């Protein structure tokens, strides 16, 4: 994972100026559109979702990100009404959804398997929900046609699902869920079944569609790149809990724990002990790294506490000549190089045995090559490490 691709919405909090309205999640007066209040879901002894509270605002694309079995799908299914919370409550647009069955919720879901009705044409699939709501026939025809044009399937209206490609099916599923103009659209791994190229393309289509329709999206995914691209905010889940919620930039640059730092993107984590703890800076002695780490911001931790400094691979500089200073510098031997075209990944083995991952963009076509077994110096800016205490 290199620098994350950002959506316009995602960059908004970072670039906010006086003229731009603050992001709703930064605004204490903003009313949440979806409110999840201390929701727990147990299956016997196992807590699939454990005391989760979340506020999602109108027009957001909120991504629930986590490994399989972390409870993200269960949480999504509770929003859709397919599972009932063991305890806690869910509000959508101010209305308590406890005990409201799926067919009465102002919510639609796009299933991971798409769940298109095989005995109906594309048109009938999309019209299904509107017919169910007894919308006038002329209006159904019009809305279905508009929606099919929007997902570029106008000419496929009379095909059956099995006559479509994976990408087309995905768009039928999306159209079917969106045509009812839900207050909230739930997407379960929306791009999971598509190949990589198509997935990237569809990600941006999904964002522009959401922008056009203004529907609030809650997306479940295990793919961090997908989450980074789509989301206005990401909720990282682990063992049924939300371990951190924030914009993609916050999650990537300011992870709150080792787990988040490690789960989102790749990272080098050095365990160490706080030796200097000042409001403006901290210094950490790390045996694992074999040196000291100087961080140009204060942290809140007990003195002498064991902490972890996380440094992203792209924020480490590599040089053959020794850099200035003694902090944030370490020497090692290049163990492996992976050339990926746009960038290269270097694995450098430190004398302590720790292997550090570095990514460097290949800015020049004839770069001075660093080769295997070469001794190199690694260094980073004091602002680069993130210090976490858990």
């Amino acid at each position: 994972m290199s620098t994350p691709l950002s959506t316009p919405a995602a960059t908004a909090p970072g670039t906010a100026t006086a003229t731009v309205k603050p992001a709703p999640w930064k605004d204490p007066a903003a009313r949440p559109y979806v409110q999840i209040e201390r929701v727990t879901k147990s299956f016997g002894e196992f807590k699939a979702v454990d005391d989760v509270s979340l506020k999602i605002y109108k027009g957001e694309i909120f991504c629930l990100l986590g490994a399989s079995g972390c409870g993200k799908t269960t949480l999504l299914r509770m929003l859709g009404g397919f599972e009932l919370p063991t305890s806690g409550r869910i509000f959508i647009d101010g209305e308590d959804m406890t005990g409201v069955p799926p067919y009465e919720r102002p919510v639609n879901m796009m299933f991971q398997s798409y769940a298109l009705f095989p005995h109906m044409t594309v048109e009938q699939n999309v019209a299904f929900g509107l017919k169910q709501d007894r919308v006038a026939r002329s209006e159904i025809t019009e809305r279905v046609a508009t929606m099919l044009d929007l997902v570029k399937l106008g000419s496929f209206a009379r095909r059956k699902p099995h006559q479509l490609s994976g990408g087309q099916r995905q768009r039928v599923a999306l159209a079917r869920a969106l045509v009812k103009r839900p207050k909230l659209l739930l997407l379960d791994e929306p791009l999971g079944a598509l190949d990589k190229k198509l997935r990237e393309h569809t990600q941006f289509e999904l964002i522009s569609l959401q922008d056009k329709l203004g529907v609030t999206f809650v997306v479940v995914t295990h793919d961090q790149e997908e989450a980074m691209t789509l989301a206005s905010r990401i909720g990282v889940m682990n063992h049924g809990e939300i371990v951190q919620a924030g914009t993609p930039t916050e999650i990537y640059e300011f992870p709150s724990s080792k787990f988040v730092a490690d789960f989102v993107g790749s990272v080098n984590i050095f365990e160490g002990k706080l030796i200097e703890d000042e409001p403006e800076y901290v210094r950490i002695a790390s045996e694992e790294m074999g040196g000291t780490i100087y961080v140009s911001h204060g942290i809140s931790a007990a003195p002498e506490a064991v902490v972890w400094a996380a440094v992203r691979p792209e924020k480490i500089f590599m040089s053959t000549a020794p850099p200035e200073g003694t902090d944030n510098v370490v020497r090692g031997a290049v163990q492996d190089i992976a050339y990926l075209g746009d960038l290269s990944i270097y694995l450098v083995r430190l004398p302590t045995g720790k292997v550090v991952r570095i990514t460097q963009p290949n800015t020049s076509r004839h770069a001075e090559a660093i080769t295997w077994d070469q001794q190199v110096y690694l260094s980073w800016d004091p602002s680069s490490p993130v210090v976490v205490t858990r």
Partner: protein
Amino acid sequence: MQRLGITGRGLVVMLPYCWLLLFFVVPFLIVLKISFADIDLAIPPYTPLIEWIGKNTLAIKVNFSNYAFLFTDSLYLNALLNSVKVAFVSTVFCLLIGYPMAYGIARAAPSTRNILLLLVILPFWTSLLLRVYAWIGLLKANGVINNVLMSLGIIHEPLTMLYTPFAMYVGIVYSYLPFMILPLYANLEKMDWQLLEAAEDLGCRPWQAFYKITLPLSRNGILAGSMLVFIPAVGEFVIPALLGGPNALMIGRILWDEFFSNRAWPVASAVAILLLIILVPFMMWYQSVQARESAGAK
């Protein structure tokens, strides 16, 4: 083998065809032949189709009067219509009972599913005749059901159940139920239950989701099961004879009577051929359903 142009695969396909030729086509042709013969007091009790008259003349005597007779005597047509009616009603009952069972099995946990399926198949391990006799024991005037109901004080004199149409339907529905359940189960088991969630998500109440999604998608299973019950039930002989009493006028019984009581082999053969002609369209329909089913599975 190769030199003879017979491959292993050809041999494998050929064997069942030889079997069918020997034990289905040949007997069928014999029955067809007898249906065009005339009754005769001989062994076998019918006239030959091909006969030498004089030295050099070979006469083929085709007698259509048996078929004509079937349409002049209302007994045969009534029996035929009654058989179709009984088979149809039995099929409907099998469907009404079998569908929920198949649905329940298909939605049960995989471990319970096998036990439930076994329970459906289990009766096949006993002879049909035994099971039908068991029903006599249950239904007769001083049988199990009457005794239990009387001892509970629900009824005061035994109900007449045996030798009534009711007993016959019970017997047929009971015997053919597995033929309904198994194809239905095979169909429902392939169903993607997430479709029902999708339907509910789009505004269907559970029963609407069943009616609009499950039912149309299990259509082929319903047709297959219905044909498997209907086709053999039309010609059913044993169950009406044992449970249905003297008034159960079924074509299978007429056949039996013509063959063995009246020794009217030609008429009996004509009845058999007529029955076959009526059932062929249903069988062809069933075949096309099966073909569609296996094409859809791909």
